């Protein structure tokens, strides 16, 4: 996005080369951030198109459009693509763009590895999507790929899925190493840890989660590969293995994973709310400690995804207590944001609107999360649409909304142009209304007894499914408007000032808009 080289920095003589090679060989954190963001947006649209297929089939009872096996491929790939292709790369893209500028560093610590960790992604994504065109179809066992459905019973393309997951994992781990190395080594003089912006803090903690969790996922898929081809029986009961072991290993990765997708969101909201409240973030240090506590707890609650597998009572009690405990630090975060707004001087620019929607809707998702954490009640909720409603509230109205908020907040800094405010407001209201029409009825569906991952349903679920589908189509369409707004802003628009907002805090607002290709060649002095 940023092609401006006119600003006077020491590196002007080697600005970006022209053409494709700029993007292929780039080691510039801003270019790589841009690549990550466009990649994730592309994946959002592909994964979204799959969601449209799902909602179209579920529009009314009976099978009308796809067969059940293809439906399962859609739910599986929708989940995988949104998690590994859309949400995670978007946060890494934001980290690339913002962390060096926020801590006053000239670039990421490991620029060549940065290039590699991005360029793995398009290949991994293509490998994953290519399974749809293979004989027998793509992965059809859900994004959680429980054995033995994914091992003994998986389609042939499962091996391609396994290698795609390996590649995505490598990319994430390299990205995480880079972020940790950058934050720990390249802060400007005076930028102590407890002075870092919250976005940097949450990403530092997220990066450690990634390094701890992704190898576990790699282990799980490698064991699958061995079960499928090398005669082992890790997960095969007939050979002395254990299908529940798969779930323990998967969720030991999977639960930290959900915090990997939400901690950077907390960081973004903690940047945006103070700016538009014109007040410092309330409880900075408690925000840092709360993030760290959530990260720690995220490693000891994994089996709350498995309350119905037949665990011993002592295990179920432990996981219930640990799970509901997470609501304490999460609550602290929400309270701190509200206290930041309290007696501020609020304005409601588009990033703030998205941030407020995040706080409201993520909190709703948190409430249903607390309900789900209560083991006996989960006997009824587990694997129903109540769960689908819950995790879409935290991942769409939570993680995705925070990413959109971040894009609107920093877009003027990246492009040098203000977005079209009217269109952006339409985009916001359209999305926030449709997302609720889409996901709120799913609570009722789940409570009334509709299981998740079914291609067809009993007729008493018809009305709410129809409503959810209408919301889904509207929400899908609203993201095309987002695409239009982005392109329009990149091409032109009202010139943004260097500060962009009235009184934003942080080093990124001290450089020109658009941010020059190289920033902070000489480190700034932080007071």
């Amino acid at each position, binding site marked *: 996005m940023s092609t401006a080289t006119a600003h006077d920095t020491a590196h002007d003589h080697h600005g970006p080369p022209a053409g494709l090679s700029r993007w292929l060989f780039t080691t510039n954190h801003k270019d790589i951030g841009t690549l990550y963001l466009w990649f994730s947006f592309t994946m959002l649209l592909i994964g979204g198109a799959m969601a449209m297929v799902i909602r179209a089939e579920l529009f009314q009872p009976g099978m009308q459009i796809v067969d059940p096996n293809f439906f399962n491929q859609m739910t599986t790939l929708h989940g995988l693509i949104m998690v590994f292709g859309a949400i995670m790369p978007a946060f890494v893209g934001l980290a690339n763009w913002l962390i060096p500028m926020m801590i006053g560093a000239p670039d990421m610590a490991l620029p060549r590895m940065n290039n590699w960790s991005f360029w793995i992604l398009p290949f991994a994504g293509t490998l994953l999507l290519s399974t749809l065109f293979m004989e027998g179809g793509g992965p059809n066992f859900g994004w959680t790929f429980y054995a033995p459905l994914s091992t003994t*019973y998986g389609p042939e393309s499962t091996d391609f899925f396994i290698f795609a997951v390996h590649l995505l994992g490598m990319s994430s781990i390299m990205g995480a190493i880079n972020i940790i190395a950058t934050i720990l080594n390249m802060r400007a003089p005076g930028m102590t840890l407890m002075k870092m912006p919250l976005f940097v803090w949450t990403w530092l903690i997220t990066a450690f989660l990634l390094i701890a969790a992704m190898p576990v996922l790699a282990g799980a898929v490698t064991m699958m590969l061995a079960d499928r081809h090398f005669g082992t029986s890790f997960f095969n009961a007939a050979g002395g293995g254990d299908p529940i072991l798969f779930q323990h290993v998967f969720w030991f990765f999977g639960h930290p994973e959900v915090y990997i997708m939400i901690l950077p969101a907390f960081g973004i909201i903690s940047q945006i709310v103070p700016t538009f409240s014109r007040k410092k973030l309330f409880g900075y*240090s408690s925000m840092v400690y709360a993030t760290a506590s959530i990260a720690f707890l995220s490693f000891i609650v994994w089996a709350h995804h498995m309350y119905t*597998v037949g665990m011993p009572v002592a295990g179920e009690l432990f996981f219930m207590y640990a799970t509901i405990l997470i609501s304490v630090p999460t609550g602290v975060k929400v309270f701190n944001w509200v206290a930041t707004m309290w007696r501020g001087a*609020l304005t409601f620019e588009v990033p703030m609107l998205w941030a407020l929607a995040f706080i409201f809707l993520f909190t709703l998702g948190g409430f249903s999360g607390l*309900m789900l954490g209560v083991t*006996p*009640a989960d006997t009824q909720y587990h694997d129903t649409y109540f769960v689908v409603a819950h995790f879409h509230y935290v991942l769409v109205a939570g993680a995705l909304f925070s990413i959109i908020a971040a894009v609107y907040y920093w877009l003027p800094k990246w492009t040098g142009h203000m977005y079209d405010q009217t269109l952006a407001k339409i985009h916001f209201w359209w999305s926030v209304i449709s997302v609720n029409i889409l996901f709120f009825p799913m609570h009722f569906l789940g409570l009334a007894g509709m299981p998740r*991952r079914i291609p067809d349903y009993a007729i*008493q679920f018809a*009305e709410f499914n129809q409503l959810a589908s209408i919301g889904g189509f509207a929400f899908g369409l609203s993201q095309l408007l987002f695409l239009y707004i982005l392109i329009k802003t990149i091409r032109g628009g009202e010139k943004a000032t260097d500060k962009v907002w009235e009184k934003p805090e942080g080093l990124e607002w001290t450089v020109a808009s658009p941010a020059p290709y190289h920033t902070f060649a000489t480190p700034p002095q932080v007071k």
Partner: protein
Amino acid sequence: MRNLSVNKHLLLALLGLGNVVYAGSVFAEYKYNMTQGVTPISGEIYDLHMMVFWIVTAIGIGVFSVMIYSIINHRKSKGVKPAEFHESTEVEVLWTIIPFVILIFIAFPATKTLLALEDSSDADVTIKVTGYQWKWHYEYLDDDAKGLSFFSNLDAESNEARQLGANQDLSQVDHYLLNVDNPIVLPTNKKVRFLVTSNDVIHSWWVPALGVKQDAIPGYINDTWTYLKKPGVYRGQCTELCGKDHGFMPIVVLAKPENEYKEWLAQKQAEKKAAEEEAKGVWSLEKLMTKGEQVYNTSCAGCHQANGKGLPGMFPAIAGSKIALGPIADHINTVMNGKSGTAMQAFGAQLSDADLAAVITYERNAFGNNTGDAVQPSDIKSAR
């Protein structure tokens, strides 16, 4: 007409969005909220659910009121000056401790219910529930019901209506997708224990009205239990993704008073005896084909498809297959013992001699496989 009624309901649903709780009573079936169910446990779960729901609602009202107050009153356009405060240890400690205390209030009843839910001791009746792709198998283990076992499939009417492009009026189908050919029958006022396992992939046995959801996992036998107080029909579904037809393996529980339950047991055992007698004779090709088609449609068509063409890359075709056109002994062996490392199950233990003979005959003569072979129940018996 049907479209019209859907739209009317849609309107009702829209109105209902603001009316989260208890609006369910307007409808005959629960639409908005969890069922209270018909067992002591399902009632306790419902109470717990409502308690946590009201707690989070109260917290939500509190937090959102403060936020909304702030949004309305603390805006720059009203000319307010932002305050300077940005930390307070006392406040942070307070809003850490208060939620913690609330959690303890939730944890007590939750623990009590969980302990009750997990106590399956002293059962009066024990039934083994086995998940198969894509049907349930019930086996009654007590002495008075020894040897009684049967499969429970999606009933034929729903099965026909749920095919891609079937385009039927689903409101005319009896309990669409929630009806089976053979329901599981349970006595009321008895503690019934279920031993839950699976023959292939993981399934999950869920009947909301019973408050029972238990995963069926190959290699494990999980146990759970229920205590039904009133007779009735209670419906549920598989809740763990188990492959292509995961959405099409419902559960129907028929709860009967003890005397009727005993009658049902006796009747089932008599039927079984009659079927065994019938299997002893020599069957005509026609009779085998008729029976074979039925068995094929419930046990085989899920994968190999009703037209015998299979699904390329996933499930092989029967039409023109080497096995269906090859030696009879190999065909019997494949059907009875399955094929390890694939989705092909061993049907030897699942189907009777007559069913196996009929379905193998059917596969050898249908879909253009005109071999003319008739496999007799006695052939199966000697192959066992």
